């Protein structure tokens, strides 16, 4: 028995003894060093800008604003946006578009879209950390109509494991690039069952894809909060283990170099051995030139002045906007002129104030290109005549979508008026402008998503935009006629299917899983009791090559994944 007098030394001694069993902390140090290299420090205590800084910031912005005014307002007036929709939606995009002015064709200017949370860098922030490879919760074997299958069950909180696992084959196994709101990681498995971490290139992640037999990663310097005029590094790897930097400059449009481009990888679509991927390029809002955090806004005071708010709530001071010939004059509280905003009127100031802080990372799509891999080089191909400008964005990544057709590939690009421009390619390398969809009644308008299915492209529309009750799926009933169906009413309860060896694995609504052998007219339910799939949960997933499948669901706030590998397909 331990009495009161011996308690403290006994605790010390006991703790010391128990510590003797701890492993060498060197491995922890190594993990910390790796994580630190990937993790930017939080510098939220930004200094209050001096008036001179404020002036300099305004001066820097002024050049951009001046350029933009002519282009954007001119474009808006030409396209009738300002006169027909003088509401918050028509707040000038304040986007750097010198590319547009440098082009022979008039720019198409779109209203500023909301930053898409699905964009690849949307979640990049100071909290970014490495995601550890998941450890199996359960594993086992299944007897299936296709023979024995091994399976593993993985699960984790939503910030620890992504909703979708998309294993990519690499020499010796598969890799999964995992990305959540709080971190990212590259996981490798030789058998799809046991996963371990693989290194990622150093730097702040800005994009990741698998295309043309290579893994490609875009990174930015850790010191940069986001795309801010710095050139990204493009990394290439064949196995997710060894990374090499390659030149990325050719990927960017040839427009003036002073645009602070950001680049986004879209969804890869393959047809035979050819893989193509849309590349979207965006320019950032002029307000981001303030570079003071996440948002910059103005709040009106009762006396007609405005409080300028920077990131982290930093108060940048009080200003007044005074109309002058051809624009606005900006003065500080003492009446000293800070800058002029040529071409702007008070209407812009009102819209700016009412729209709240402008997200400095908000960007506007300007260019779209197609990426292919040629001789190991990631190459961007121009789409003839697409011109600058963008729309609300389609495709799973919020960018344009590509689908395969009988003839090759079709690139879909939604226009602001709801029509969809297309470009066709037989080989993925040469693209020609195709028909415009949505000009005629009975055609899909306001496409929000493009699905590349084995039976052809599916366009998902939301007309009018934003009305989720009016979501429709459109398929080509022949080469030129589109037919709509409302999801859930076309008689199909099929959630998705995957080709597994000589069969197709079908998951219907609920948790029913069937294996359908091609050629037989017989579907056989797959025994899934061992997986402990809870009935009623929505399932999704996909094929991993032709011998495995991943089934996923969201339950209890966690992501759950079952990877099933069919071992006896050769039989």
């Amino acid at each position, binding site marked *: 028995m331990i009495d009161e007098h011996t308690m403290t030394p006994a605790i010390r001694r006991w703790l010391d003894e128990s510590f003797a069993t701890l492993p060498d902390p060197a491995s*922890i140090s190594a993990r910390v060093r790796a994580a630190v290299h990937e993790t930017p420090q939080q510098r939220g205590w930004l200094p209050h800008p001096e008036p001179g800084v404020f002036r300099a910031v305004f001066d820097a912005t002024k050049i951009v604003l001046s350029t933009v005014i002519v282009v954007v307002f001119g474009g808006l007036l030409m396209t009738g946006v300002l006169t027909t929709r003088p509401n918050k939606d028509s707040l000038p995009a304040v986007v750097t578009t010198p590319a547009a002015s440098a082009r022979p064709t008039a720019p198409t200017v779109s209203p500023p879209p909301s930053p898409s949370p699905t964009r690849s860098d949307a979640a990049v922030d100071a909290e970014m950390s490495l995601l550890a490879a998941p450890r199996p919760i359960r594993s086992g074997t299944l007897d299936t109509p296709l023979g024995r299958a091994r399976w593993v069950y993985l699960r984790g909180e939503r910030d620890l494991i992504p909703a979708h696992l998309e294993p990519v084959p690499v020499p010796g196994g598969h890799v999964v690039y995992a990305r959540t709101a709080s971190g990212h990681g590259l996981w490798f498995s030789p058998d799809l069952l046991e996963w371990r971490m693989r290194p990622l290139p150093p730097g702040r992640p800005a994009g990741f894809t698998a295309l043309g037999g290579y893994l490609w990663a875009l990174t930015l310097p850790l010191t940069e909060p986001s795309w801010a005029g710095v050139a990204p590094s493009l990394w290439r790897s064949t196995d997710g283990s060894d990374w090499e930097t390659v030149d990325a400059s050719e990927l960017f449009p040839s427009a003036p170099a002073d645009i602070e481009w950001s680049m986004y990888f879209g969804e890869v679509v393959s047809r035979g051995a050819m893989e193509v991927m849309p590349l979207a390029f965006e320019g950032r809002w002029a307000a981001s030139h303030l570079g003071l955090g996440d948002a910059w806004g103005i709040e009106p005071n009762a006396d007609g002045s405005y409080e300028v708010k920077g990131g982290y709530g930093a108060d940048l001071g009080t200003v007044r906007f005074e109309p002058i010939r051809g624009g606005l004059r900006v003065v500080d509280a003492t009446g000293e002129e800070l800058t002029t905003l040529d071409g702007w009127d008070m209407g812009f100031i009102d819209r700016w104030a009412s729209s709240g802080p402008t997200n400095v990372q908000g960007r506007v799509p300007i260019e779209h290109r197609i990426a292919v891999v040629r001789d190991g080089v990631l190459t961007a191909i121009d789409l003839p005549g697409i011109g600058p400008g963008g729309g609300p964005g389609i495709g799973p990544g919020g960018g344009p979508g590509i689908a395969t057709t009988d003839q090759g590939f079709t690139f879909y690009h939604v226009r602001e008026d709801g029509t969809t421009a297309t470009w066709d390619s037989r080989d993925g390398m040469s693209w020609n402008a195709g028909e415009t969809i949505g000009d005629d009644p009975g055609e899909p308008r306001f496409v929000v998503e493009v699905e590349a299915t084995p039976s052809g492209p599916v366009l998902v529309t939301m007309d009018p935009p934003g009305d989720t009750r009016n979501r429709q799926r459109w398929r080509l009933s022949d080469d030129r006629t589109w037919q709509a169906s409302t999801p859930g009413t076309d008689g199909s309860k099929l959630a998705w299917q995957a080709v597994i060896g000589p069969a197709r694995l079908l998951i219907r609504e609920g948790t029913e899983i069937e294996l359908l052998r091609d050629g037989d007219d017989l579907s056989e339910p797959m025994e899934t009791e061992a997986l402990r799939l809870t009935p009623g949960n929505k399932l999704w997933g996909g094929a991993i090559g032709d011998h495995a499948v991943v089934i996923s669901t969201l339950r209890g706030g966690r992501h759950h994944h079952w990877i099933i590998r069919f071992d006896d397909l050769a039989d």
Partner: protein
Amino acid sequence: VVRAQEGDETAFAILTEQLVGRFQRVAFAILRDPDLAADATQAGLVRVWRKLPGLRDPARFEAWAHKLLVHACYAEAKRARRLDVILAPATEPAVPDGLDAIVRRDQLDRGFARLTLEQRAVIVLRIYLDMPVEDVAEALDVPVGTVKSRLHRAVSALRASLEADARPAMRTRARLEAS
């Protein structure tokens, strides 16, 4: 510390080497699981790195860093609970010794496992690390008075637990529940 504050990764690596062993022991004492302790240690050190620029007084680094570690331990324990990990001592005696010592160690094992995370934290910081009460208060983000009362209650609870525990010691290893 100042160099690391300015973003010098090499300086922080040196700091890490100085802290990692102690952090690992403190985390293990709080969590009673070596794997969780390793994860909490890593998370705590990364938090130190991330938040270092916000440390206004480098002289207070030790208490401040331990605060981040303790928070990382709490978060790790919460995460472990979510993953249905049953926390239990998983250690074996490092050095053979007499039966009395073994019994005493077993009693402490079980008694400590019954304490709350907060009680373990105050014991390890105050009794094992011998940190001043003021530093413990800063590390735990509580007033000095709370540290004293929490320490008193922790030691009392440990003593009561030991006195009530007359059964033979039995160790169980941490296990993942296959729910």
